[in-house]
């Protein structure tokens, strides 16, 4: 199915991705840093990573998990707890005398740790839960996310998690910018770095999907019983997929923390999981490219392009009716319903970026 060697299609895809990165780098140096474009790219990169990791479970392995928000929470907290500068801890852990963690880790080490801790929790949760079937698995993972949220909010754990209070003042995306001695930014990297991190993680996921493991996972999705009969260890493979997916979701959580600049357990609700699920569906269940494209479209539409629907607009002297706070979300949800009902295969179906070059030229038009 997938060729390992360098085909024209693969090279063309790699070139497109490279061009996008260069374009982002140039845009970041030239455009004002406050432009909404960068906000969208940063959040989009985060959501793309989480959506692809969800797709690895739901689209490629057929495990319907709804625990994403919980694993993102773990990732975000682990990252924040280990990167808040020591001198700021007294301010952040204001009710817990500076907390018990009294050392910091470098940013990328903390991100890695965020992923590992999330994967570890996934391992524990997976032991009982992965034996369940479809809907039951979905609701059990959803329940786990809620339990994790409550545990992180518990007052008694305050010295570590700051209880239900906000964690903040840790390094954010803006700290990737290179500054000169006066504190002025010389090279803007605050958008490029998150895109690179997400890109590397997604590339790793694609490699897993295309490996022997990936083929085993697909066979589990197609038919569990048949896969088992072919000698695939179901429990082992499912657990592996669950842990890998949670690892990258954890890293996504750390990125979300950096994007939001603050972390608080109460915002990691099931609504967040549903949003990511919608991104996966809109992109096409079983397409990594689709998840990436739809993550950026989803974020851009909800944060940027549809914003005007929330404010009064005048065309000449005529005030456009219906427009007021909240209308954006109504339009947005109707668009989602239309996609879900009438474009069930999503933007990409199960196609990937290189596939577009293998088929007729026409298919390329669908990309963005």
């Amino acid at each position, binding site marked *: 199915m997938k060729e390992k060697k360098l085909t024209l299609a693969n090279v063309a895809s790699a070139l497109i991705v490279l061009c996008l990165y260069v374009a982002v780098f140039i845009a970041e140096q030239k455009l004002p*840093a*406050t*432009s*909404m474009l960068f*906000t969208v790219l940063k959040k989009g990169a985060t959501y793309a990573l989480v959506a692809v990791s969800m797709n690895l479970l739901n689209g490629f392995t057929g495990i319907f998990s709804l625990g994403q928000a919980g694993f993102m929470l773990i990732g975000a907290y682990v990252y924040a707890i280990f990167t808040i500068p020591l001198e*700021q801890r007294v*301010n952040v852990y*204001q*009710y817990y005398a500076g907390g018990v963690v009294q050392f910091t880790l470098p940013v990328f080490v903390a991100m890695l740790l965020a992923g590992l801790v999330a994967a570890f929790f996934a391992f524990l949760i997976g032991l009982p839960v992965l034996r369940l079937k479809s809907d039951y698995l979905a609701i059990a993972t959803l329940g786990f996310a809620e339990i994790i949220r*409550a545990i992180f*909010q518990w*007052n008694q754990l305050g010295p570590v998690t700051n*209880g*239900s*209070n*906000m964690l*903040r*003042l840790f390094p*954010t995306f*803006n700290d990737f910018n290179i500054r000169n001695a006066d504190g002025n930014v010389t090279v803007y990297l605050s958008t490029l770095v998150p895109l690179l991190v997400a890109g590397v993680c997604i590339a790793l996921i694609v490699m897993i999907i295309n490996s022997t493991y990936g083929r085993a996972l697909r066979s589990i999705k197609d038919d569990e019983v048949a896969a088992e009969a072919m000698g695939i260890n179901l429990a082992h493979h499912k657990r592996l997929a669950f842990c890998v997916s949670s690892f990258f979701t954890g890293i996504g959580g750390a990125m979300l923390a950096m*994007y*939001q*600049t*603050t972390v*608080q*357990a*109460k*915002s990691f609700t099931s609504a967040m999981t549903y949003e990511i699920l919608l991104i996966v569906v809109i992109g096409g269940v079983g397409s990594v490219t689709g998840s990436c494209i739809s993550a950026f479209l989803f974020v851009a539409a909800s*944060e*940027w*392009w549809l*914003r*005007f629907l*929330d*404010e009064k607009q005048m065309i000449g002297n005529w005030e456009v009716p219906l427009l007021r*706070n*909240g209308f954006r979300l109504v339009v947005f949800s109707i668009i989602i319903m239309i996609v879900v009902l009438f474009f069930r295969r999503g933007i990409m179906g199960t196609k990937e970026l290189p596939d577009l070059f293998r088929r007729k030229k026409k298919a390329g*038009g*669908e990309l*963005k």
Partner: protein
Amino acid sequence: MKKLMSILLVLAMVLPVFALAEDLPVVKLGVYEPASGDSGAGGKQESLGIQYANVETPTVVIGDQEYKVELVYADNGSSTDKAPSAAQQLVASGVSAVLGSYGSGVSIAGSQYFADAGIPAIGLTCTNPQVTSGNSHYFRICFLDPFQGTVLANYAYKTLGARTAYCLAELGNDYDVGLVNYFKQAFVELGGMVIDDTFPTGNSDFNSYLNNAAMYGADVFFSPVSIAYSTQIVQQAAAQNVTFPILGGDTLDSNVVANAAKGTNVKVIITTFYQEGANPAFDEGFKAWLNSDSEALTNNGGNDIISAVSVMGYDGYYTALEALKAAGTTDSKAVMAALPAVTLIGVSGEIAFDATGDAIRTSAFVKTVDTATGDWQFVTEQTVE
């Protein structure tokens, strides 16, 4: 086709909408307030004060040039996860300064974005010390929680004679949790006993918590929570015929809460920034404006009782104008540099900033609900050194 569509959409968004027949240049002020969510009602009342001030003084002279002041609204949805995009929206629209927010959590959540963009923010009623501590861009014109908590604890212990206090806060709400914490410190220091509890966001069943308070034999129920929860607590307390008074902070100073207590025998006591009647000229003007604008009246909860938060919004707007005048330019960094030296006599009292950017305030008003009429009644003015 999709590509073309999206490009068109982007262009439509990026190109500024040119105002027709406007001679004056525009200076933008961001209104960073919740218009929805648990604190939506409070945020709207705070915005009303800003809007009224803007109607009263729509222009400002900066340097030698007269500017029209344009308010840019961003709804932070009362929640820390919606706050970042609201803050970024304001930053992207190029405001010179930001006013807000109602609620400390959302102020802290948006803070970093304003700092990164070099935009000063003036907190109106966010009372948690963390909003301004350790940064140079956040200022505030109201009193702080350590002060408010001490005032309330003193009032509960000395005036009400309470010895056991039950405190209830929303999980993860910096305002509630902070205020409860400072209340607790002061109350324990006085010799009282405190039991504290928290409830999850979105909870609507307060019966069990009221039960808890009764079981512990609490003399006072301290719940400085959002208006949405306060009204439910008051109503459920009425249904349970509780014997203890309900004590709250400045968030409860809203006619919405007073309406909930109307016709019941629940005693509600709060501390706040302003008492209606202290400045008759302002009261009269504000009420006339409310009554002339049906949308404003709806946002004020349907009647023209003045909430203290509206007064703070009004004062905040004039503080921002003073800063713009002092800066002599619309550049946000210059405004930030000018702010620490700004002083003015506001409706809520004298406004001046200390080294951390907090207002120097030493008194708070204590009010209670007249359950027969549903009005706020002045009890006393409390000062703590």
